[in-house]
């Protein structure tokens, strides 16, 4: 009974982090029609910036905020420096369709290699800002600690902030408009390019938050070729696909679902099968519900 409860709690915590990454991928996909594989690199870079801040100021909270801001800046920069250039040049030819994908992969390698050269492959580490010892109830230890509480809280806060931006502000309206119908939005006076960059910035911020939360939630280790960030990317992608790749709510639901499934596999089956199960979930969703479990209706797809 307690094991079941703990499994669910672990699933929710890791699922919340996958959701953040999925949101980052969805934001970029909606604004640019690119699945941004560099997102893992951006998250890694932002987390390293956060790590440096912790070294200087010894505060996780300042570091979290700085990392999120830096993540937004990096995202915006990538759009302005690379993506605009890429789209302005690359409109025809046999690989025009896949060129953006390849470019973001190249960026991922570039960021990883760059961090490796300047900061080294030796593991940096981020200690949890609050205790990661589980709460105890009547002698049983719950798999839910102040840290996990913080993670879930931070994810909920960021999601509320994002959905407020999207639903209640003019900028959010412009973001939605340019995603659904860029041409019409442009005619209506929306500066689509700028809005697109904003989408990349928001995605960068979400990715940075995912990185800063995932690192202390795992073993705290941080290295340029850490598997954690590759997995974050892959699980984020799977979560986004479960949610239909278009919708923010879908990304959250997808992340939580995937987190729960993987937590159950981890507890009741085997740790080294986690990955394969995730892959099978992806294939199943793609074969059975290619537009996602709660995918938007076809008519609304931009």
């Amino acid at each position: 009974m307690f094991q079941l409860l703990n499994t669910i709690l672990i699933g929710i915590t890791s699922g919340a982090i996958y959701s953040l990454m999925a949101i980052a991928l969805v934001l970029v996909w909606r604004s640019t029609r690119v699945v941004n594989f560099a997102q893992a690199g951006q998250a890694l870079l932002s987390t390293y910036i956060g790590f440096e801040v912790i070294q200087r100021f010894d505060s996780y909270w300042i570091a979290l905020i700085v990392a999120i801001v830096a993540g937004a800046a990096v995202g915006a920069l990538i759009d302005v420096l690379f993506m605009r250039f890429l789209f302005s040049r690359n409109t025809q030819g046999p690989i025009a369709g896949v060129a953006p994908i390849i470019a973001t992969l190249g960026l991922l390698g570039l960021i990883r290699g760059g961090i490796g050269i300047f900061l080294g492959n030796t593991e940096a580490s981020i200690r949890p800002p609050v205790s990661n010892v589980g709460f105890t109830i009547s002698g049983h230890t719950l798999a839910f600690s102040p840290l996990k509480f913080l993670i879930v809280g931070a994810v909920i806060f960021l999601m509320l902030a994002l959905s407020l931006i999207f639903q209640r502000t003019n900028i959010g309206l412009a973001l939605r408009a340019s995603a659904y119908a860029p041409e019409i939005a442009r005619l209506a006076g929306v500066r689509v390019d700028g809005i697109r960059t904003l989408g990349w910035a928001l995605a960068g911020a979400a990715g940075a938050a995912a990185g800063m939360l995932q690192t202390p939630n795992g073993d705290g280790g941080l290295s340029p070729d850490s598997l954690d960030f590759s997995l974050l990317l892959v699980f984020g992608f799977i979560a986004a696909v479960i949610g239909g790749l278009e919708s923010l709510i879908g990304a959250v639901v997808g992340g939580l679902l995937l987190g729960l499934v993987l937590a159950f596999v981890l507890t009741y089956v085997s740790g080294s099968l986690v990955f394969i199960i995730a892959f099978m979930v992806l294939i199943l969703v793609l074969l059975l519900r290619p537009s996602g479990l709660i995918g938007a209706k076809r008519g609304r797809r931009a």
Partner: protein
Amino acid sequence: MHRFQHSNFSRLLFFVLLGGLLFLAGNRVDELRVYQGATLAMYVVAISSLILLTGYSGQVSLGHGALMAIGGYSAALTRNYLSLPIWLCFVIAILTAAIAGAVLGTAAARLSGPYLAGTTLALAVGLPSIANQFGFLGGEQGLLFDVGMPPASFGSDFSPYKWYFWIAASSALIAIWWLQNILRSRFGRIWRAVRDNEVAAQLAGIHVGKAKTLAFTVSSGLAGLAGALLAMTIATVSPSAFPLTLSFALLTGAVLSGVTTLPGVMIGAVTLVATPEIADSISRRFASSENVTMNLPGLLVSTLLVLVVLLVPNGPVEQWRSVRARKSAHAAH
């Protein structure tokens, strides 16, 4: 029809001659170069499998490293547990990878660009973890893969590296020759039609899904061969032999080669073989730290990838060709 057969035959002759030349060249250079020659041949096979997929059927795979791992592991398993002759191990490597590719391709045929890219990426990240799940796969250490000594009739000064080179180069030649033939056949035309315009191809009576699945299967088989060749040159198979960076490197090679030009495959393969050496000489010249030595090759490959996609998306060869065509058209006016 007659001309077609003739050109077919002359191409075969060309490849046989090329093989003879390579064999002679293998006797002239030192061991390191021979070893690099074997690696080069491995990359030629791997990159051409990706070129077939991306350039000729318009799909993208970020997970060919995983398919190479499937090929490498099946070759090593059949060699170690069944002690089959080496050529049979290679055939089994090709078949196993092709079967895996067919399964993946059936799903892939229904996926468009970003979905397929993500799925194959997921495979490349996750497949190595299987090695830890099943004991007979050898865990992190992996398995030994020994292709055996060269036949005694080749003489006593015929080194193992030369034997590797010999196997790899002949496999590469056969693979490329076969691939060229298939690209000139009905299937090649079907794949190009699908790549250029799916709807039009469908209207012309082509079963798009089947065509894509077939392309993925053939490409995977070639990747399996490349995986077995890689396993041969490093004499082991282990999860760390097929990292994510391998898949990225192959993609870089394919893009550099100009994804639509099979003969360009040499450019990509040479670049991939030369990169570690260039990186090494750079970091030695500047007497730099271990960080630089470790990360420079990957950084160079990624930089090349980004630069090529941004500046000459269709590959340097194609770019040069189209510039020249434009110039000569200009001159004609």
